[in-house]
C-alpha cells in the first residue's frame, strides 16, 4: 500500500502539487489521468523519490520513503520515466541486466541472469536482445526499458506514460503484460496515462488530477463518467458501453 499524505510541491513558486492525499491499493493497477500539467508525473516521481517533496509524507507498506535506504527501496519500487535518452553503446540485454543492480551491485549471478531472461521473454525481445539501443525504433526501446523494470522484480512498478511512441499492437501488448504482472505475480502497478480508454479498459482504480489536486479517485467505472470527465478535461465526452467496457468517444 502506498500512502500519500498532504503532499505539496512547487517549482519556482509555481504550485504543481497541492495538498494531495491518496491511498493506493496493493495488487491493483492504478492509473493517473488528467490534462497536461496536472502534476501526474510529478506525483509519481515523488512517490519513487526521484524528486523531493516540499511537504507531507509518503510511505510504502508503512515505511517512510525518506527514512528507507535507497538500495532497499530499489528492491521494492521501480520507476520508468517518460523520456529515456541513454547515450551509451548498450545492447538490449545489457540494459535489462541493469535491472538486477539493486540485488547484485553489478556482479550478476545465475539467478540474476535467469530473471533477465524472463524479463526479455516477457517483453518478446528475445530476437533483438543483442541489438544496440540506438538501432531500435522508439517503441522497441520503450519495451526494452520496461523489460529492465520487470527484471528489477519489485512489488511496486511505476510507469510514466509507458505507451508513448507505441503503436496499438504494442500498447495493447504492454497493457496486457501489466495486467498479467498484477493478476499472476501480484505486483502493484501505477501508471500515468493519457489515453483514457486504455485507463478505462485495463485499470482497477483511477486517480484523476487537475491543477495539482485530486479531482476524483475510485474504481475505474466510477471515474469514467460523463460529469467527472467534463470536470477534468472541460470537454463533453460520450461514454458507450461496449462488451462491458466503458469506452469514451471524444473525437
Amino acid at each position, binding site marked *: 500500500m502506498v500512502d500519500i499524505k498532504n503532499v505539496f510541491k512547487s517549482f519556482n513558486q509555481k504550485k504543481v502539487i497541492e495538498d494531495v492525499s491518496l491511498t493506493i491499493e496493493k495488487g491493483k493497477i492504478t492509473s493517473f489521468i488528467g490534462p497536461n500539467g496536472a502534476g501526474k508525473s510529478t506525483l509519481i516521481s515523488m512517490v519513487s523519490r526521484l524528486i523531493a517533496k516540499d511537504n507531507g509524507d509518503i510511505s510504502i507498506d508503512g515505511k517512510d520513503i525518506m527514512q528507507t535506504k535507497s538500495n532497499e527501496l530499489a528492491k521494492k519500487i521501480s520507476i520508468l520515466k517518460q523520456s*529515456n535518452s541513454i547515450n551509451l553503446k548498450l545492447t538490449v540485454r545489457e540494459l535489462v541486466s541493469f535491472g538486477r543492480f539493486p540485488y547484485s551491485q553489478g556482479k550478476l549471478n545465475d539467478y540474476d541472469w535467469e530473471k533477465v531472461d524472463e524479463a526479455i521473454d516477457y517483453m518478446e525481445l528475445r530476437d533483438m536482445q543483442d541489438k544496440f539501443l540506438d538501432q531500435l525504433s522508439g517503441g522497441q526501446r520503450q519495451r526494452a526499458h520496461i523489460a529492465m523494470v520487470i527484471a528489477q522484480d519489485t512489488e511496486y512498478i511505476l510507469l510514466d506514460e509507458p505507451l508513448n511512441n507505441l503503436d496499438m499492437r504494442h500498447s495493447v501488448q504492454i497493457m496486457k503484460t501489466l495486467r498479467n504482472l498484477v493478476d499472476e505475480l501480484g505486483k502493484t502497478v501505477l501508471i500515468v496515462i493519457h489515453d483514457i480508454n486504455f485507463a478505462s479498459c485495463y485499470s482497477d482504480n483511477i486517480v484523476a488530477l487537475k491543477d495539482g489536486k485530486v479531482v476524483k479517485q475510485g474504481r475505474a467505472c466510477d471515474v469514467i463518467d460523463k460529469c467527472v470527465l467534463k470536470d477534468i478535461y472541460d470537454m463533453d465526452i460520450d461514454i458507450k458501453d461496449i462488451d462491458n467496457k466503458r469506452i469514451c468517444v471524444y473525437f
Partner: protein
Amino acid sequence: MGYKQKTIILTLIAILLTLLYIFYDLTGNIGYILPRRIIKVVAILLTGAAIGFATTIFMTITNNRILTPSVLGLDSLYLLIQTAIIFVVGANSLVMMNSHVNYLVSIGGMVVFSLLLYRLLFSSEQNNIYFLLLVGMILGTFFSSITSFMQVLIDPNEFMVAQDRMFASVNNVNTDLVYISVVLFVLLLVYMMRYYKYLDVLALGKDNAVNLGVPYGRVVKHLLVIVAVFISMATALVGPMTFLGLLVVNLAYEFLKTFRHFYILIGSMLISIIALIGGQFIVEEVFTFKTTISVIINFIGGIYFIYLLLKENKSW
C-alpha cells in the same frame, strides 16, 4: 576484436613508448640522465592517468561527452588558488617555501570549490548542457583573468621566485611533488573502490541511477571531490592541458566501444599516457623543443571539440 584485446594492445603501446622514452639515445652521464628521465616519466604517467580518470568520471556523472573538468575551468582554478596564495602570503612565506604544504592547501581549495560546483551542477532539477558549458567557459576565462591580474600586481621578483615552482610544463616537470603525488594517487584509487561499481549505473542518467538504488547525492559528491584532487594533481605536475581529457575519453569510448567503466577508465588512462609520452617524445626528438606538447594537444583537441559540438548539435 573485443575491448579486452584492445585494452591489452593499448597497454603494450603505452609500455613500449615509456621504455622508448626512457632509453632512447641514452648517452653521456647515465647516472645523471637516467634518474632524471625516470622521474619525468613518472610525473607524465601520473598526469596522464589522473586526467584520463578524472575526465571519465566527470563525463559519467554529468552524463555528457563534451564537458570536462578542464573545460569547466578546474585547472585554471588551481592556478588561481596558487596565485592567490602568493598574493596573500608572499613568495617567501612558509606556505610557499614548502611545496608540499602549498600543494595540500591548494588541493583543499579545489575540494571546497568542487562542493560548490556540486550545488551548481546538481541542485537544479534539470540541467541544460549548453548552459553548463557557457558557465564553464565564463568561469575558466574569469579564473585565468583574475590570475593574470594578481600576477601583474605581485612584486616582479617575488613572482619570478614563485613562478618556477608554480607553473610546471611537460618540459619543466614539478619533480618535488612526484613522490607525494604517487602516494595521493594510490590513496585515491583505494578511496574510489567503494564507488567504482556505481559508475556504470550513473551513466544511465540520474533517474535510472536513483531508481536502481544508487545513493545519488552522496556518491556524486564524493566522485566530484576525487575529480578535483586528480585535476589538481595533474595541473600541479605538468600544468593545464585543456583538451587532453576531452580527447582521450572520447577516443577511449570510440576505440573500445563498450560502456563498461572498468575498461573505459583503463583505456582513457592508457590513451592519455600514450598521447603525453608519445607527444613529448616527438616534441623532444623531432621538433627539438621548438614547440610544446600542450600546444599540439590543444590544437588537435580543440578541433575535435568543435567537431563534437557540431555533431551533438545535429543529433538534437
